[in-house]
């Protein structure tokens, strides 16, 4: 059985579980909504939402919401107590890693599709340069999913993981958040691609590093 088929099998299992329990995605959407509202409280000046806060609100909300999903990423296996069975496949731990990363990407992608219009409406912003914003979001979410899946696996073996996941994740994700905020801010002001191409390249480099390193390290900590 090929690695791709095993990955698909595990991903289909996780999607089916998610569709039945509806816990994680629903909670992520709710949490994203709450973040936006709280940020509005923080940044509202005389009842007028500040448009220049849109990039920051969007990216920080995605960073926080991603954590919510990552904390529950391995929950089905932990409840069942069969992580060893799922990790020991003919293709090693790779199917487990990629299925979990794909699940996280799927969830955060859905959250983003829901979040973007909400932030635009609440903060009264016109979404110019949407194609570039979408590209930055895709790069950001891929990097977060790959690094986050590794972080979630590291923390699966540790006490106090709710407190520790942000400590492990947020400093490492700094390039993605900085890049994402910059690209979004520049794209919103209809800047040409050349104005933020360096940031896109940096995010690409980050994704390349974590997409290669994370599954390799994952295999070394999961056995």
């Amino acid at each position, binding site marked *: *059985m090929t690695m791709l088929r095993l990955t698909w*099998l*595990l991903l289909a299992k996780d999607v089916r579980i998610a569709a039945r329990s509806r816990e994680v995605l629903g909670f992520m959407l709710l949490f994203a909504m709450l973040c936006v509202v709280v940020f509005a409280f923080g940044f509202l000046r005389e009842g007028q939402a500040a448009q220049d806060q849109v990039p920051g609100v969007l990216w920080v909300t995605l960073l926080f919401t991603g954590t919510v999903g990552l904390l529950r990423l391995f929950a*089905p296996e932990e*409840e*069942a*107590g069969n992580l060893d*069975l799922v990790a*020991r*496949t003919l293709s090693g731990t790779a199917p487990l890693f990629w299925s979990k990363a794909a699940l996280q990407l799927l969830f955060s992608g859905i959250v983003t599709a829901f979040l973007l219009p909400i932030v635009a409406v609440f903060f009264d912003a016109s979404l110019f340069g949407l194609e570039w914003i979408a590209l930055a979001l895709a790069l950001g979410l891929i990097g977060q999913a790959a690094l986050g899946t590794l972080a979630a696996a590291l923390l699966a073996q540790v006490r106090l993981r709710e407190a520790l996941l942000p400590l492990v994740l947020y400093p490492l994700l700094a390039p993605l958040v900085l890049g994402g905020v910059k690209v979004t801010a520049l794209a919103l002001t209809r800047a040409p691609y050349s104005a933020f191409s360096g940031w896109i390249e940096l995010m690409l480099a980050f994704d390349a590093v974590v997409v290669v390193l994370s599954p390799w390290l994952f295999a070394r900590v999961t056995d």
Partner: protein
Amino acid sequence: MTGVLQSNPARLSARQLAWSVADRFVLLGVDVAFAAGTLTVLWGDNGAGKSSLLDLLAGLRAPTRGEVLLDGVPVGDVHPADLARRLARLGHKPGAFLDLTAHENVKLLATLCHVSPSDEAVRQCLDRVGLARRDQARVVRGFSRGMMQRTALARLLLTGADVWLLDEPSTGLDAAGSRTLGLLLDEARQRGAAVVVATHDFSWLPKPDHWLQVRGGQLSEAQP
């Protein structure tokens, strides 16, 4: 004790196995061999190290010292996928995904062990462990412990594991369930599996080939 000598070849064996938690040995110098087609009972006080021993034998934990061999090969050298299929460990956790049905669970877990069963084969296995047809299509989350155990057993039957390591398998089973469990273990033994059961309740067991007491961090042949 220097091992259970058998005419049959040893399926699973351990050499000078030791396991420590926070600078203290729980198990030390365990030499044991479980032969094909035998049923061995592990018994002993709570905290004597029965579950730890089963975890070490299943390769879920790396021993502090010593090694575990499957058919004479150190488990570290066996492909993990083979290990998952041939060594079955049934512990205190359900072993099945709580939001999948019994049928889906058995089918998925067997497929991961590179046995691809048909739906009919899965149904037959679930029938044999005594799970009603209507329960087979139910999500496992609502199951009682006994039904959960039956689901886990169905997976073992389907993948045809060589070594069965069972930790308190009769907990939560009713009289009929215990009887079925006893029959299934006997059958697995006759098929040539090495069956190891850690338990406090011996009433349901088919006649064991060996009794091993876990005491003072090692094994000795003794009957309760």
